């Protein structure tokens, strides 16, 4: 079982940590260098985690476990207006990122109001490309109740954030109260406690999603696939996005259009088979990125037959 951790420290000798992660069979999920500081998100085997802790201590860096690493989360606001952005949506996004997830922020075109709110099929499709959706709605419980159709029809797990302390509606598993409409940065102790509660709920949602997948496991871990692509596909290192390959719970997303990508992975092989045999490769109709969804073991076996 892998343990995910976030290392923050100086750039000097950070490569020693990267080498150690590689030596013990771990993975480097994300690497961000800002001037003389470095932030690494790593996945290492649980039994060797102490080695990493000791190395981080030696390098005078900070190492924290991040439960959300390896997942992509979309935070959805009712609109992109000043009423909902930048607070609290950007603060929520930042806090989730600090816990290892890759986040996307989106505002619905017509998500506001009680009677007039609506969500389009395109918006739903965009949200469903991530692993978890976090809906940040307002203060009034009556309004939340009238907006359930925005999130109850989404195929991925949804975490709802709203003003009322309690909110129960059939079909909604995860709810965190106390985060409604806000107009200031959420950085007080009380806010951070709420954020911790939110991360706990999101972690539960990610964990449940992973458990669902484990019932019919994937034939390849997304982290392995990421490594194979990084080592064999030319041009990935030249993608200017800070995270060229985004890890999902059931696959990866490469920030390259499919027509370029398919050409490049044509001859990449793993364990005697071509990459195309391990996963369904398609282009996102919205972002034009390439999405690789790894086959489950049962599906893979049926294909072989």
């Amino acid at each position, binding site marked *: 079982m892998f343990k995910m951790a976030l290392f923050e420290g100086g750039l000097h000798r950070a490569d020693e940590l990267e080498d150690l992660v590689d030596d013990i069979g771990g993975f480097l999920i994300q690497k961000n260098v800002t001037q003389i500081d470095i932030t690494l998100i790593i996945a290492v085997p649980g039994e060797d985690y102490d080695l990493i802790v000791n190395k981080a201590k030696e390098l005078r860096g900070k190492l924290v476990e991040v439960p959300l690493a390896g997942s992509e989360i979309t935070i959805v606001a009712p609109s992109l207006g000043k009423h909902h952005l930048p607070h609290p949506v950007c603060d929520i996004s930042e806090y989730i990122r600090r816990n290892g997830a890759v986040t996307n922020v989106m505002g619905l075109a017509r998500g506001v*109001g009680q*009677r*007039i*709110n609506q969500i389009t099929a395109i918006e739903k499709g965009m949200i469903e490309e991530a692993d978890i959706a976090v809906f940040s709605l307002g*203060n009034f*419980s009556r309004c939340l109740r009238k907006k359930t159709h925005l999130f109850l029809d989404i195929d991925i797990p949804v975490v709802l954030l709203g*003003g009322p302390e309690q909110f129960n509606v059939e079909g909604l598993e995860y709810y965190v109260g106390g985060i409604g409409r*806000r*107009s200031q940065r959420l950085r007080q102790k009380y806010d951070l406690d709420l954020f911790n509660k939110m991360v706990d709920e999101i972690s539960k949602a990610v964990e449940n999603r992973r458990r669902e997948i484990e019932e019919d496991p994937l034939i390849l871990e997304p982290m392995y696939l990421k490594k194979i692509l990084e080592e064999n596909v030319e041009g990935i290192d030249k993608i200017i996005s800070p995270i060229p390959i985004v890890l999902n719970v059931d696959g990866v997303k490469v920030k390259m259009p499919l027509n370029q990508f398919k050409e490049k992975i044509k001859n990449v092989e793993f364990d005697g088979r071509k990459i195309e045999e391990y996963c369904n490769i398609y282009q996102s109709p919205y972002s034009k990125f390439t999405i690789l969804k790894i086959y489950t073991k049962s599906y893979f076996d049926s294909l072989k037959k």
Partner: protein
Amino acid sequence: MEIIVEGLPEKEAQGYVVLINDIMREFEIRRSIEKVFFYGDTENFVFIASIRIKKVLEPLRIEDVAIYNPEKEMLSVEDEFYVPKILSLLWSLSKEGVEQEDRTEIKMPIELYNRVKGEVVYYPTDDLKKNVQEAINRVLPEAARIKYILSAEKTITVASSENAISEDSKKLAQKYHERD
């Protein structure tokens, strides 16, 4: 600044007090406001915000914001914020002899200065009212785009909804507008 929220359950009202406070702080108008009334009816989706301004500021005249030197025939303006307003006023009367020598220095004949020194160049209350209006728009829910606005010297009241505003809501807005 006093904030009174009515019509909402206690917890939601508390949340709105915090929200209103934060928005007023963002617009830097807390010190100029005496009272804020907010009424919310989530069932009919009607929201009313009514703001009392503390005091109405006096309009500023040219002689309040600038000093004239008769020997040099030069008007020195305290803040360059007022310069475009003064220049547009002067040029509307005469362009002869009026020249901007520096960012805040305007050369002009003494006769012209005597003619215009009592003219109003800036109404501070107008700016404050604009900010108050913006703040009210931010406080009210985004979907409540249909608005019924009442404005008096020291009070601005806005009733808003996503539906057409009923006569009852208009009457209620009037009541909040006249309330002490």
